[in-house]
């Protein structure tokens, strides 16, 4: 049963990611990425990481993607922005781009081959106290003890990002506004 769910989620993730990269409309790309995240969240549940799964939905699908959606809507991004392309899906354009797609495939094969020998054994069945060891309590304890410095540094990072984003996206108050375009 778990194997069935794994293959379903894996297939959904891969197909959704392919469509994110391949199809034209940016709005659909964003929505497909959300689908991909949801499938990944399912994979995390299968990997005994329920906290990770829920946090993935809250942060990625619930916050970051809303941000992307806002920008796509506000900039009114249309499919035709993507250069002078034809409408066929997966038409990466002239020869160099097709070559690039082949290279990406080569990359995938290389990575799989390189990682192949890490572990041929199946996952050990979850230890008796696995649920407790990977529970939210355990994560919290480790986060605030061994990784406390990284935690605080991340909070400073988020503050910097917040301030930076507000300043970068601000309209220049001294520039003349366009009246007749």
């Amino acid at each position: 049963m778990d194997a069935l769910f794994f293959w379903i989620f894996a297939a959904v993730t891969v197909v959704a990611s392919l469509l994110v990269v391949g199809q034209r409309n940016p709005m659909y790309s964003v929505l497909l990425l959300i689908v991909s995240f949801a499938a990944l969240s399912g994979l995390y549940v299968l990997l005994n990481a329920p906290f990770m799964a829920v946090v993935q939905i809250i942060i990625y699908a619930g916050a970051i993607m809303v941000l992307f959606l806002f920008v796509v809507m506000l900039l009114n991004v249309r499919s035709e922005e993507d250069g002078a392309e034809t409408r066929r899906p997966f038409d990466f354009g002239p020869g160099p781009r097709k070559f690039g797609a082949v290279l990406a495939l080569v990359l995938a094969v290389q990575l799989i081959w390189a990682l192949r020998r890490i572990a041929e054994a199946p996952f050990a069945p979850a230890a008796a106290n696995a649920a407790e060891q990977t529970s939210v309590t355990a994560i919290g304890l480790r986060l605030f003890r061994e990784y406390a410095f990284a935690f605080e540094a991340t909070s400073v990072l988020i503050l910097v990002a917040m301030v930076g984003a507000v300043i970068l996206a601000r309209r220049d108050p001294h520039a003349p506004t366009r009246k007749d375009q």
Partner: protein
Amino acid sequence: MLPEPTLNTYLALSAVLFSIGTAGVFLRRNLITILLSIEVMLNAVNLTFVAVDRFLGTVDGQIIAFFVMTVAAAEAAVGLAIIIALFRHRQSLSPDAFTSLKW
């Protein structure tokens, strides 16, 4: 019956997602789609961390994946702000429109 997933299966899936993201970053001519492809790559890495975590029975991988998510959020915010600022100048979202620094 379907084959039971091992650690190798998860790592292979991760590798495939990472290559899809890489292909997106290099081949797409729309800034927002490029950012989306970067998010795909980051998620592939998160999957690797959590899968190895399950294999080893620790929680460190989950914590690192959590940090990766936070950093991805910060990076997405700043990246989108930059895109908005760029769009205001050139009214275009194609990376080919921003070539004025080329010699």
